[in-house]
């Protein structure tokens, strides 16, 4: 090593490398065998000792000789050339430069400007050693992988449409930066004057190849011919025909782009399973290629047909430069890149394209989730643009239409829109509802929620809304079998809001006189910063994306602290319900109500006990939800033969529930227990209680319910102005039966 003259090295980087190898205290597993120079490069030959397993997928040796080309001006990453004559170039990532015959190793994936920031001498040696290690283990090049997945990021790029490959190829746009071209192609023709830099495209499809049979891509026109001609003798003739088209003849000074499709099959004679695509530019102009093939001669910037044809020259002189080919995203590719679990599309409906709907929609479309139907009958107003995805351009346009346009800009053909209102159904809305896998209600309208819950054609629904302050996000979702309907989950959510300390203040600023959970986004008097909307919408998009892949119901709340950005997650327990359908109306009793009554009864035995029932109702849809049975107030009288409910502290407590739930929860009636010996049927006294409820409540228009909890079953009777009373029993032996339990029409 002493006879190596390191002083000839001009590149700082080469000198640093030499210093590392020569002076390192610890083993470098590298030694330099010689150095030399060209006009613009310092060349360092070294032998590397990578760490290698005994069994190797690619035959890398314990000692690999390489030559490093250090650009004296340090304007490019060092090129790495294997000095081993039998280096398995066909098996590993390699690249060829037009100006050199040798094959270089594709070691760098980064751009030089990024790489140089951290590329110390040791990092360079270690990168090379690691490259050999990974190559030996087969990590860098696996069967079925494209031959050149690691075309340097700095190469020219061809962007092609999503989905199937085009049958005709037209350049739609070309841009150039630092000598690197990005060319966008599409299937339909483009007016020539709209494309400033022209790249005529010649397209060829190779015969199907068995996976792995092709070890290397073609590097010149001759190699390409050798690949194609065994099965398609007319390749060159086809290329000539293309060259002789007027479109090519008149641009003889341009460089052609050759696009090659390579269908791949698992075994010989099988069906092609996937198609690899290559794109090449050539070192010669179209005119020069035509001359070399003997078809044309050049006259200025134009080529002319040569008659008779000249001899075909050496086609290996037409070098092919590999381009990076990038396919536009479709939903499936977007899902893969977004890390979304499903391979499949899900049909979704968004009800509402306001702040919440538009943001969640765009986010989910970015993840490839869809297709969608967006329903909204509102127009974009100037103030909407603060919180919605739409900008000033969309003011005055329908929200659904403008959100659709933006979403389809993200991934084409993903969203259709309906300018309509779910509460005023038309055929289009009904069709969208019945076809959807999941309806997402972003309307912040309890009426819309109820409407969706009642629609038996719906497969599954979820409702997403903010609390009035815009700090909390709520997602309520049905299970995939729809054992629980959205409104039943909503009623339980209200009870949680009414009772759970962790939800203090959740609905505190709701306007009790107008709506139950006010739509924060529509309330102009309360500023709501876009970051808050987007943060919560981002969370919603993530949860809803996951929801499309799971079956269970859920009720979740995220509480954002606007001062710190901290978000607290709460998952509410949801209980199954027992439904009693009466003529024209129905009542749903949560399993929690039954469980509580039975437990309170058991603790009081042999005495009777009781209390009041709490719940919500929808007078328009004629639905009553019983969500809680409260224990007996302390001044109640509990004996083995009767129960008289007291009233101590009861009203403030129920008023509190009502206030905390934005007026949703209210008193619904009375319950009491019967001892073991007595059936769960109303006694004479009990009939008087029900009559008392009827007299006092019925005229006011509220529903009223009486329940008797016995040892084996619970009996209930309910009434509502304008309807006949209903009566039914719920057996205790049955565990939470989620299905509809027919009641008796009284």
């Amino acid at each position, binding site marked *: 090593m002493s006879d190596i003259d390191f002083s000839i090295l001009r590149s700082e980087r080469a000198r640093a490398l030499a210093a590392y190898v020569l002076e390192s205290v*610890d083993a470098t597993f590298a030694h330099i065998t010689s150095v030399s120079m060209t006009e613009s490069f310092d060349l360092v030959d070294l032998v590397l000792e990578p760490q290698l*397993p005994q069994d190797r997928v690619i035959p890398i040796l314990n000692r690999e000789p390489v030559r490093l080309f250090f650009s004296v001006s340090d304007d490019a990453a060092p090129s790495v050339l294997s000095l081993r004559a039998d280096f398995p170039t066909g098996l590993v990532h390699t690249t060829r430069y037009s100006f050199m015959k040798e094959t270089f190793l594709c070691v760098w994936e980064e751009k030089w400007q990024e790489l140089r920031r951290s590329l110390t001498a040791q990092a360079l040696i270690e990168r090379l050693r690691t490259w050999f290690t990974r190559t030996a283990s087969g990590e860098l090049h696996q069967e079925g992988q494209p031959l050149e997945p690691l075309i340097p990021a700095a190469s020219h790029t061809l962007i092609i449409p999503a989905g199937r490959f085009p049958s005709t190829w037209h350049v739609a746009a070309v841009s150039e930066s630092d000598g690197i071209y990005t060319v966008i192609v599409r299937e339909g023709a483009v007016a020539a004057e709209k494309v400033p830099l022209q790249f005529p495209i010649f397209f060829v499809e190779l015969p199907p190849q068995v996976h792995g049979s092709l070890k290397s891509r073609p590097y010149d026109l001759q190699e390409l011919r050798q690949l194609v001609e065994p099965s398609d003798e007319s390749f060159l003739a086809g290329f000539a025909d293309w060259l002789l088209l007027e479109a090519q003849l008149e641009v003889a000074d341009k460089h052609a782009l050759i696009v090659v499709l390579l269908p791949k099959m698992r075994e010989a004679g099988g069906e092609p399973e996937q198609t690899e695509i290559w794109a090449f530019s050539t070192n010669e102009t179209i005119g020069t290629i035509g001359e070399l093939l003997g078809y044309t001669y050049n006259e200025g910037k134009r080529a002319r047909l040569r008659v008779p044809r000249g001899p075909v020259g050496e086609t290996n002189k037409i070098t092919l430069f590999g381009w990076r080919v990038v396919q536009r995203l479709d939903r499936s590719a977007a899902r893969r890149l977004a890390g979304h679990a499903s391979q499949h599309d899900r049909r979704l409906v968004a009800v509402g394209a306001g702040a919440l709907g538009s943001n969640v929609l765009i986010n989910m479309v970015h993840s490839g989730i869809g297709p969608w139907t967006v329903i909204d009958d509102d127009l974009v107003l100037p103030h909407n643009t603060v919180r919605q995805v739409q900008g000033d351009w969309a003011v005055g346009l329908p929200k659904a239409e403008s959100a659709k346009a933006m979403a389809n800009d993200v991934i084409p053909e993903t969203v259709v829109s309906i300018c309509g209102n779910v509460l005023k159904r038309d055929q289009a809305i009904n069709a969208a509802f019945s076809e959807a896998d999941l309806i997402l209600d972003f309307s912040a309208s309890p009426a819309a929620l109820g409407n969706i819950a009642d629609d038996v054609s719906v497969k599954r629904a979820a409702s997403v809304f903010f609390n009035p302050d815009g700090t909390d996000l709520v997602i309520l979702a049905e299970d995939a079998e729809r054992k629980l309907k959205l409104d039943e989950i909503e009623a339980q959510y209200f009870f949680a809001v009414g009772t759970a300390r962790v939800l203090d203040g959740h609905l505190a600023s709701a306007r009790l006189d107008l709506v139950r959970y006010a739509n924060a986004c529509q309330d102009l008097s309360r500023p709501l910063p876009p970051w808050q909307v987007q943060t919560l919408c981002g969370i919603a998009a993530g949860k809803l994306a996951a929801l499309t892949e799971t079956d269970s119901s859920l009720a979740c709340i995220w509480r954002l602290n606007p001062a710190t950005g901290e978000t607290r997650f709460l998952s509410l327990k949801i209980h199954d319900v027992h439904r009693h359908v009466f003529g024209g109306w129905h009542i749903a009793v949560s399993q929690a109500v039954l469980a509580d009554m039975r437990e309170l009864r058991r603790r009081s035995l042999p005495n009777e006990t009781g209390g009041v029932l709490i719940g919500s109702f929808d007078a328009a849809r004629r639905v009553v939800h019983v969500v809680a049975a409260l224990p007996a107030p302390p001044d109640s009288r509990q004996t083995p033969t009767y129960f008289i409910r007291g009233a101590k502290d009861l009203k403030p407590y129920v008023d509190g529930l009502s206030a905390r739930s934005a007026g949703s929860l209210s008193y619904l009636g009375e319950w009491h227990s019967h001892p073991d010996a007595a059936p769960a049927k109303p006694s004479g006294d009990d009939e008087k209680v029900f009559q008392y409820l009827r007299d006092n409540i019925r005229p006011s228009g509220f529903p009223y319910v009486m329940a008797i909890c016995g040892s084996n079953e619970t009996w209930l009777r309910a009434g509502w102005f304008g309807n006949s009373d209903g009566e039914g029993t719920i057996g205790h032996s049955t565990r939470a039966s989620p299905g509809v339990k027919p009641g008796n029409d009284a």
Partner: protein
Amino acid sequence: MHTVRFFPIGNADSCLIELENGRRALFDFADMRDPDDSNDKRCDLEKELRDVLDGAKEIDVVAFTHLDTDHCKRAKDVFYLEHAEKYQDDERIKIKTMWVPASAILEVGVTGQARTLRAEARHRFIEGKGIRVFSRPEKLDQFLRDRGIDPAKRRNLISDAGTLCPEFNPEHDGVEFFVHSPFAEHSDGELIVRNDSAIFMQATFSVEGRETKLILSADVGYETIEEIVRVTKYHNNEARLEWDINNVPHHSSYKSLGPEKGKEETTPAENLEWLYEEQGRKGAIAISTSDVITEDETTQPPHFQTAAYYRRVTKDLGGDFIVTMEHPKSDKPKPLILEIGKSGSTVRKFAGSSATIISTAAPRAG
């Protein structure tokens, strides 16, 4: 992944095997370094061992292939010995099972380290626990009868050549140890030749169906290896002499390869040629536990001619020949670590960096 570790301790042996399930076997312990010589590049073996053990105070098996100093130096300072209180304190490393050749018990007139280890081996053998003795010469039975012990009662502690050691099994440990030598006759002559009565073993590791075979050949001479090959072939046990890793015998001494040293390259005895050239598997590695190999003509091993042979053979196999005092480089040798995995063995080649600096103490700052 299992690991096999050889230490740079000059012309001396110590090989630590760590199994995926955490069990360990140590073959020989010879802490050769001269702590007063700052130019001594041999490692502080006790420290290296304790670092690897990471606080553990027991090794499942410690084998002393024979009782030469270059195989057991300072063992009595480091290990907890059952036979005398002065070798018992909390810091010492306990030996769950000690493996020794019968000669280690039977040899007479020994002194120093060897005498202490003989006392330990005899104690364990007489007590009937914590020991495995290799080969059963007649003298061993006599040794027991002299002490009023029925030899049949100690039979379970003795392994004959050609058997597997019961301390490890493939299902639980992913490894089995097959003992090739010593034979009984090695210790039944008038004069016991330590080197030839030493333990010669093959360990077969298995990871996801890939077997990796390690031969540990101590200091046996070529005649003994010839005999081992003959016997193995006689029993059609050729697979038991295949190797992916070969700790070549006696620090690359020509006497363990053939009768003549040779000029450029030692010519192996016939059976040894078969052992190295036919039985080495693709990518196999030979390891010389020895000093740096120079081109100087020397009496003591390592002999460069012998090393040249191993080097050529492993190159032909697509493998490598590694000298412990030259790895990873002669002026700063470090323990040689082989990982045993589903792709066979991998020599760990970790280039030093700040990771090495922060994993050791910094020099004193003024």
